[in-house]
């Protein structure tokens, strides 16, 4: 199973974030009248929820805290036993199945510190495969593959302890661990809470990229509607008792909230919400002049001048952008320098315009470098975001 992911990525047609025929390795989940009634409470925490979650999609549960969305999620892997109703994974009724066996087939990412602090990153990630009695070498290979997948260099991070990682890196390891045994279903319970906004945005981008590659069925719980709009193929808006108020695509919910409750939850800035619906990959990007570390500076400067550019994107030897110097800076050096700009504003093709704007503001720059599968995909400037706002305004009025 571990080899298939790499093969899949070769089969995948196109590389745009909206690639139609994306690979699906997930299975559907069907809830039929699922109920949780705690003893001694008059109203059920989850009241007869019936839902169908299509295979290979990200479905986001949103709602205020205490609405039962997390309870519902935890009933999917039976961390909480339903007191009524049936849960199907694909066509299989899993309500009565051995819970431990079931959970090894369902990836689970929890809020914040779910990593075991006394185990190395590698051990953490390899836990489920080991439980499934994979051979030692197969587990080790799988661990490296997954760390690579979530953007952590296996050599560097495999033997570190969780505490030696930043918050964002810990979340990546959490995702890798949940994906370890290649489960068809991934449950994520506010996995990117409690990290700073920029890191959170990168984690979201990365989840979307991974999902594009793997096509799992992902159920994602959050109380942040922006996050729901960004990540969800579909969104379920819950009210108290896990009452399903609306279950639809983000576009449809934004355009036509089912009740006042949803409209309130969505919030007033509907125009700005459109920024969350538009991906960086959907707008036209400018093609910058790109220079590699170690190239002679003079021809690069001439090339940029000929193209009428003031700035050059510098990439490392693997094609990843590391800095964005002006021609004046560059012409002072003989070869393109390998200085890494820690604050270089970078977003992925999956990022929303909202993210791009945030990133620009955080870096105090008027543009961002956009990266795609093969390195630099282009640059986007603040005017592009403004134009998108103008356009949606115009559409809303017309």
């Amino acid at each position, binding site marked *: 199973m571990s080899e298939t992911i790499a093969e899949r990525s070769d089969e995948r047609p196109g590389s745009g974030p909206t690639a139609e025929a994306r690979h699906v390795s997930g299975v559907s989940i069907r809830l039929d009248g699922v109920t949780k009634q705690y003893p001694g409470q008059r109203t059920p925490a989850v009241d007869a929820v019936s839902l169908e979650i299509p295979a290979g999609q990200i479905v986001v549960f949103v709602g205020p805290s205490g609405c039962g969305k997390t309870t519902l999620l935890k009933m999917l892997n039976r961390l909480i036993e339903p007191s009524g109703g049936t849960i199907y994974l694909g066509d299989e009724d899993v309500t009565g199945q051995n819970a431990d066996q079931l959970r090894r087939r369902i990836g689970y990412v929890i809020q914040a510190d*779910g990593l075991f*602090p*006394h185990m190395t990153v590698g051990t953490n990630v390899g836990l489920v495969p080991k439980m499934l009695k994979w051979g030692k070498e197969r587990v080790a290979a799988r661990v490296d593959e997954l760390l690579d997948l979530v953007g952590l260099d296996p050599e560097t991070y495999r033997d570190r302890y969780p505490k030696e990682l930043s918050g964002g890196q810990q979340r990546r390891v959490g995702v890798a661990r949940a994906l370890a045994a290649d489960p068809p279903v991934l449950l994520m319970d506010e996995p990117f809470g409690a990290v700073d906004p920029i890191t959170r945005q990168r984690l979201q981008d990365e989840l979307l990229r991974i999902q594009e590659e793997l096509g799992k069925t992902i159920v994602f719980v959050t109380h942040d509607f922006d996050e729901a709009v960004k990540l969800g193929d579909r969104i379920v808006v819950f009210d108290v008792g896990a009452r399903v108020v609306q279950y639809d695509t983000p576009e449809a919910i934004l355009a036509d909230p089912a009740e006042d409750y949803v409209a309130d939850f969505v919030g007033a800035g509907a125009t700005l919400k459109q920024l969350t619906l538009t991906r960086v990959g959907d707008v036209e990007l400018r093609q910058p002049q790109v220079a590699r570390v170690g190239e002679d500076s003079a021809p690069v400067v001439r090339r940029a001048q000929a193209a009428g550019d003031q700035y050059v994107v510098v990439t490392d030897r693997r094609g990843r952008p590391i800095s964005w110097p002006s021609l004046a800076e560059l012409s002072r050096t003989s070869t393109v320098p390998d200085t890494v700009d820690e604050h*270089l504003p970078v977003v992925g093709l999956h990022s929303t315009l909202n993210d791009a704007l945030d990133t620009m503001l955080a870096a105090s720059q008027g543009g961002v470098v956009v990266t795609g599968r093969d390195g630099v995909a282009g640059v986007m400037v603040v005017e592009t975001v403004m134009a998108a706002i103008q356009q949606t305004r115009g559409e809303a009025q017309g």
Partner: protein
Amino acid sequence: MTAPMPAGAQAYPETETDDPQAAVQTRSRARSASGRGGWRGLLVQPVLIAAGTLAFVLWRATAELSDTETRQLGWSALGRNIVDHLQLTLVAGVLVLAIGIPLGVLLTRGPFRRATPLVLAVANTGQAAPAIGLFVLLATWLGFGFGFRSAVVALVLYTVLPVLRNTMVGLEGVDARLVEAGRGMGMSALAVLFRVELPLAVPVMLAGVRTALVLLVGTATLATFISGGGLGLLITTGVNLSLDALLVSGAVLVALLALAVDWVGRVIEHLARPKGL
């Protein structure tokens, strides 16, 4: 596996610069915490113990002693008392671990939680009761008889509390989310206990074990009142016959033994502390 993940690190250059400063800082902090500082503290104690032992041996070799004192402080008599004392401590210690740790684990598991106040009350009483009273009570009224056996029982009753309580506190201090993460990924309750909860509780548990062992060394001096042997013999003889040399020797040896046991405990704590904490 050789097939690359093309998008991986390539598309996301920020991965390595993802707050590296913070990570590096925690890394170095983690190192210094478990590194030199801890070991330096561990080096002082054995030096003191060695110095104390040396002083005692020198004094013993040169001091002018009465007949009784010479007999009691003869190397063979001394050796027997020390061995007796250690035997009491070790046997009681093993029993304390065998009772305290499983009981502590049990009392933190679902249905048994309700028994916690009751068991803690009993253990508290055991420790709050005057130790000497426990010894005498067990030997006389409760029919355990005089000697080694009832001394061990009394010692166990007296020192099980720190092990029991620290086991419970240690287990309860484990982040509930980690337990949930373990269960959520399909580990059985038993696997979570052994792979997650106990390893993380080890530092607190070992602190309790060390406390219990030191208590045991000190309390075992009372065993002599019910003919249980040990270094208490030197002290009581010294008191009864007004032989200060015996009294002080007994006290000093017990203190050195307690310090030594404490040190061994600290070394074990240091070595057994899970990495990465």
